[in-house]
């Protein structure tokens, strides 16, 4: 905090502060002499009042001196710089980061956070003088500055702020700060970054701005009061790529960001059909609403889930596209001695009709573009575990039949992140029994075995195996055995957790196993392939979804002319496109605006549908606490006016005038109290 005197030349006036003191002392020393008949009674009066008068005299002296000092200071025109100011005559370079993310659209009934932020940002800029430079960054997923470099046209910046529109985007605070630092680099004078935002906790918590030492940071929060909100956070289809005729589960996750329970109705629209479910969402909790839908054809379709609109309507609607698969593409990878088992799998898939086994190489596995609905690895020795893990994370079920002599637990740990203690280095061992090992269903209630429960399709565990991997349950990640040998050795182990990994310990080699020759094998394999795709979040994550602020890309086929392709937004408006020649004719859109269904069209034909959904992180409107905002490392202002005053200083003369008047009033009151006492 510092004070600058604009009329410092008047400092000699400060000597006038001594006037009351001098008057006090000299008036006491040389008062006019008045003859009086007898001072005896005056002395008596003095003795009575002196006890009170002495302190009162000093009080009056202090009040008068303070009043004179206030008047003198008033003429010196002091300016208060409460936060490291004082450089009034120094050029200031200010970058205002204006949060334009979706959460700024919350309205408290009168105006949105964004409207408040625009006003505050404009107020901050209004405090700049003609010699200062500024820029405004509209912060969203990708921040962009109004000027490419700091400029002095403050009026234009204020106009841009007035014209600025709220986006439905999320916020990348780090990117905005980096851009601000880049703009300020090389500027002469004071450098300041002012963030005007609601400081939504979901976006800002954890952000640690690392600014150069010569750049000051000021935070102006615009979030006021409570901001209760309900939102649809997720619409997912399980499985993500259903087969025609398959019944899918549509999951709608709804969240309640308020302290009171909310009863909400979720309306699901699948093409023209509508259905609704009511649910009660606990305070600060979530609920999942399930819809069942049978897929009639392999034609892609969209679905839309909605809640009744509340004060923050952007997140009350969510879309999803469903692209049913004609066949399940099964990627089969075989290594070493696992070739016969892989071949048995492939034969089984061919017998199913709706599944197509596609041989996979290690190179294809390493290619990120490789897409399969299920991955079956026979004899895979754990090479390229990250690629396999990538499939798992995308929700692609992986059935793995390990080879002999590999550290099973270690690879399992890499794949599932499930740590096992003790036997991490234990290698798999082959064991044989001339009589053969008998299989049994370990989890008869599992959906895989639902079709076999009536006995119509026989016993899936029929057949004997003369050799197997000697694996104990303790070597496997946490999970459950779907099938096991009669001695308890796991034969088919489903790992627990989000990643759909199955451990296969049923060799299908000729001469070793008769399982693959049983009539029940094919239906069992089919049920296994269908059911492993279900109930995994990974499967759902594979559904394509974009967010506002991002771009859409599409590579048209040879049958479509690039110049015919258009991208239409939810409102029917065309989104500008640009062609990336380097990628072989990929079309890239501008940043996406509002959420909804975007359609790639060529002429009248809809080539592809894309879903752009509201960013879930923006739904929790709770701002950071004041302490947390301070933790960003800068100053915290209540309003832009505060920032303006910190930058330009607070003129103290009106306050001094009031102080002087108050002091004189007090002086008068003290004097009057003596008269009326």
């Amino acid at each position, binding site marked *: 905090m510092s004070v600058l005197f604009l009329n410092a030349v008047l400092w000699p006036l400060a000597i006038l502060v001594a006037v009351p003191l001098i008057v006090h002392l000299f008036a006491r020393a040389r008062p006019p002499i008045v003859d*009086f*008949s007898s001072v005896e009674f005056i002395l*008596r009066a003095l003795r009575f009042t002196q006890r009170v008068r002495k302190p009162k005299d000093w009080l009056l002296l202090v009040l008068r001196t303070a009043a004179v000092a206030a008047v003198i200071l008033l003429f010196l025109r002091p300016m208060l710089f409460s936060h490291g100011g004082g450089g009034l005559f120094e050029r200031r370079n200010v970058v205002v980061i204006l949060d334009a993310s979706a959460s700024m659209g919350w309205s408290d009934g009168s105006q949105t956070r964004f409207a408040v932020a625009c006003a505050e940002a404009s107020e901050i800029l209004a405090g700049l003088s003609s010699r200062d430079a500024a820029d405004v960054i509209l912060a969203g997923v990708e921040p962009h500055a109004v000027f490419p470099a700091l400029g002095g046209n403050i009026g234009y910046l204020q106009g841009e702020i007035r014209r600025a529109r709220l986006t439905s985007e999320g916020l990348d605070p780090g990117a905005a700060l980096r851009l601000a630092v880049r703009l300020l680099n090389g500027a002469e004078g004071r450098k300041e970054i002012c963030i005007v935002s609601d400081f939504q906790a979901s976006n800002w918590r954890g952000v640690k701005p690392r600014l150069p030492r010569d750049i000051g940071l000021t935070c102006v929060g615009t979030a006021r009061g409570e901001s209760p909100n309900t939102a649809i956070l997720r619409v997912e289809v399980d499985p993500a790529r259903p087969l025609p005729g398959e019944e899918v589960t549509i999951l709608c996750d709804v969240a309640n960001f308020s302290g009171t329970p909310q009863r909400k109705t979720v309306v699901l629209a699948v093409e023209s059909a509508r259905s609704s479910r009511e649910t009660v969402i606990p305070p600060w909790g979530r609920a999942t609403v399930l819809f069942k839908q049978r897929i009639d054809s392999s034609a892609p379709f969209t679905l839309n889930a909605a809640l009744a609109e509340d004060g923050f309507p952007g997140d009350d609607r969510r879309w999803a596209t469903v692209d049913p698969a004609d066949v399940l593409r099964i990627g089969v990878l075989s290594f070493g001695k696992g070739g016969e088992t892989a071949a048995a799998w492939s034969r089984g898939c061919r017998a199913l009709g709706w599944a197509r086994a596609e041989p996979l190489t290690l190179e294809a596995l390493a290619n990120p573009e490789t897409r399969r609905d299920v991955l079956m690895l026979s004899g895979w020795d754990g090479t390229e575990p990250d690629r396999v893990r990538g499939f798992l994370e995308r929700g692609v079920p992986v059935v793995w039949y390990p080879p002999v002599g590999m550290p099973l637990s270690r690879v399992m740990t890499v794949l599932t992140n499930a740590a096992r203690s003790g036997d991490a280095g234990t290698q798999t061992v082959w064991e044989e029994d001339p009589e053969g090992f008998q299989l049994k269903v370990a989890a008869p209630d599992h959906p895989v075995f639902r079709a076999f429960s009536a006995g119509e399709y026989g016993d899936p565990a029929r057949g004997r195996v003369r050799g197997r991997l000697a694996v104990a349950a303790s070597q496997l990640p946490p999970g459950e055995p779907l099938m096991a040998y009669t001695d308890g050795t796991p034969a088919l182990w489903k790992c627990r957790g989000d990643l759909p990994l199955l451990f296969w310990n049923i060799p299908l080699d000729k001469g070793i196993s008769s399982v693959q020759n049983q009539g029940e094998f094919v239906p069992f394999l089919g049920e296994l392939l269908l059911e492993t795709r279900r109930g995994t979040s990974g499967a759902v994550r594979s559904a394509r979804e974009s967010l506002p602020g991002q771009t859409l890309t599409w590579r048209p086929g040879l049958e479509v002319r690039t110049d015919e392709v258009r991208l239409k937004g939810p409102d029917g408006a065309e989104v500008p496109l640009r062609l990336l020649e380097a990628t072989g004719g990929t079309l890239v859109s501008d940043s996406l605006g509002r959420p909804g269904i975007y359609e790639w069209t060529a002429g009248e034909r809809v080539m592809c549908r894309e879903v752009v959904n509201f960013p879930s992180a923006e739904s929790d409107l709770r701002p950071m606490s004041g302490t947390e905002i301070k933790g960003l490392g800068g100053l915290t202002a209540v309003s832009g006016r505060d920032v303006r005053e910190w930058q330009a200083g607070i003129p103290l003369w009106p306050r001094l005038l009031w102080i002087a008047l108050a002091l004189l009033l007090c002086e008068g009151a003290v004097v009057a109290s*003596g008269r009326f006492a």
Partner: protein
Amino acid sequence: MTQRRFQYLRPEDIRSLAGFEFAPKAVVEGYFAGRHVSRSRGSSIEFRDYRQYVPGDDLALVDWRVYGRTDRFYLRTYDHETSMDCHLFLDSSASMGFGRDLSKLEYASFFTACLAYLVIRGGDRVSLQPFDKTIRTFIPPGSTGAHLNGLLNLLERNRPGERTSLAESLRHSFPLLKRRGILIVVSDFFDDPAAIFTALGPYLHRGFKVFLFHVLTPAELELEDKGLVAFRDLETGRRVTAHTDDVREGYRHAIGRHIDALRDLAQRRNVDYTVARTDTHFHQLFERLVQ
């Protein structure tokens, strides 16, 4: 009565005083027959009382009618009227010089002069004793025009002197007064009230009718607003610096207590006490004397 124009007895005062007669109801001792009742019993027409005859009494005073009814000798006694002695005590201390347009001493001198004129006009005798810390001059009682002239001349020459000591002056004066009569003290009474009344004790015991006129200016009763000033005592020269706003209330309280003390003591000793403000005409004080 007088041809010369005196400062304190102006013709307009004489004209104004024409309707006044100084006749306080006081019992006096007198040598000459006059209008005032005397304790000296003798031949007169004013019957006073009976008393038993004792050898040596004048037989002419025996009431024979009473003897005829009661067979006892009783003498009739009468009050005879006599002239009155009026003793004027005029405070001439330095404090009496206080007053902006009219000093207290001038005011008291006007009053004293007119009072002396009234007394002599009524055929009574008047004495004057200006005093400060003691009796400065003593003009014995007299009732002639020349006596009045002498009195007026003394008043004109009289100037404020030293500090007040009324009690001391009264003690010194007591042997000088041969006859009892009326004692009128005109002063600002800047002395200890108890000491004053102690000094008045012998006079009261001897039968003097005492009138006290406490002369004060308005500025003494209500301290004027002069701001911060150094008050210089006219009698002692002592200086006291004070702000009139600060001490006014206390001063008013102190002077009020002094007046109350004097009034209280006067009431208890059957002494007539009057505050004489110099902003009121001194003629009003005569009404006090005839009540």
